[in-house]
């Protein structure tokens, strides 16, 4: 089974406000507020760490959930965020562009 890699889309603006991660699409100005799981995924999405490692090291310790279930849900979440062009998803590591941190500013 191939591994998935996720990276933040550098074309969105992101900022955490009182613990809520807010993201705005630069393309159409749509505003998103991420829930806790999506925020963890966003912050860990460096393009180099496989999704299963993110789930194992970042998500599972935060939630009482089976790793296999968590990975299944995380994949669905990653693809949903990719559909909104918030994240990029690939079966290959994604080279960094210009969004090295969890917040774009």
């Amino acid at each position, binding site marked *: 089974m191939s591994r998935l890699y996720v990276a933040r889309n550098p*074309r*969105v*603006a992101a*900022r955490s*406000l*009182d613990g*809520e991660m*807010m993201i*705005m*699409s*630069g*393309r159409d*100005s749509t*505003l998103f*507020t991420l829930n806790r799981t999506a925020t963890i995924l966003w912050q860990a999405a460096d393009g180099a760490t496989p999704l299963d490692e993110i789930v194992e090291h970042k998500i599972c310790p935060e939630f009482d959930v089976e790793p296999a279930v968590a990975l299944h849900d995380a994949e669905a979440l990653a693809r949903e965020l990719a559909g909104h062009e918030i994240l990029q998803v690939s079966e290959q590591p994604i080279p960094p562009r210009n969004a090295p941190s969890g917040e*774009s*500013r």
Partner: protein
Amino acid sequence: MPELIAEVERLSLVIEVGGMPVRVNTSDPGFLGMLQNRYTGFLSDSGQPEIEFDVDLVPPNSANPDADVHVSQRLGLWCLTRGDFRAEWEPAAGRGWIRQSANPYSIDSVLRIVHTLVLARQGGFLLHSASAIRDGKAFLFAGVSGAGKTTISRLAPPDATLLTDEISYVRRQDSGYVAFGTPFTGELAKVGENVSAPVAALYLLAQGPENRIDPIPHPEAARSLLANVLFFAEDEDLVQLAFHSALEFVSRVPVSRLTFVPDARVWELIR
């Protein structure tokens, strides 16, 4: 051979909103007079305008002024279009032109758009809100149409100076924000006073059975603010700047919900 080219007299005035002087050139005395009336209180004798527009007047047509605005930038040149006008502006040169019929509404829209573009790079914005100064502090009252911007403006006591009943001008300054008066009017059709003051609070308006102020968490404040910021540009960089400006604002300025009954006692809470 007689000289066939007659020099057209160039008439101009400078409109200064938010401390940014914009020179407008026209060859039509009637249009100049129209602008002088429209922008009374906001005319400046600044000899160094930051932006200069040449207005090319065309015959009126049936173009729809309520059509969508398109604002895009390519190679440093902004193009602004709506049914009733077309304009270009090159920030690096500080110059541009506007093609419209002889009416004050088209150029008013162009000026609003240009101010949003300039402010976005400086951490400020235009906001759908009424605003007023009281005791040296500026208060903003934001809300969708019908929320009470006109009502709160109409109820303002004599010691409050109305900056606008419709479009507030917010500029980042030092560690805070300053609100300026604007000529951009709403239902009151009353031009604001051309003065400014530090922003003390932003109130999100709601009409209800009593007068009360309730603090709003930062994320909700940011969402509400973003919903009321005037922004037209189809430009990813500026969208990101506007986003960060709004979140920075709610981190520095108290944002509350102001529920009010429509009588003047609500102003007892605004100090």
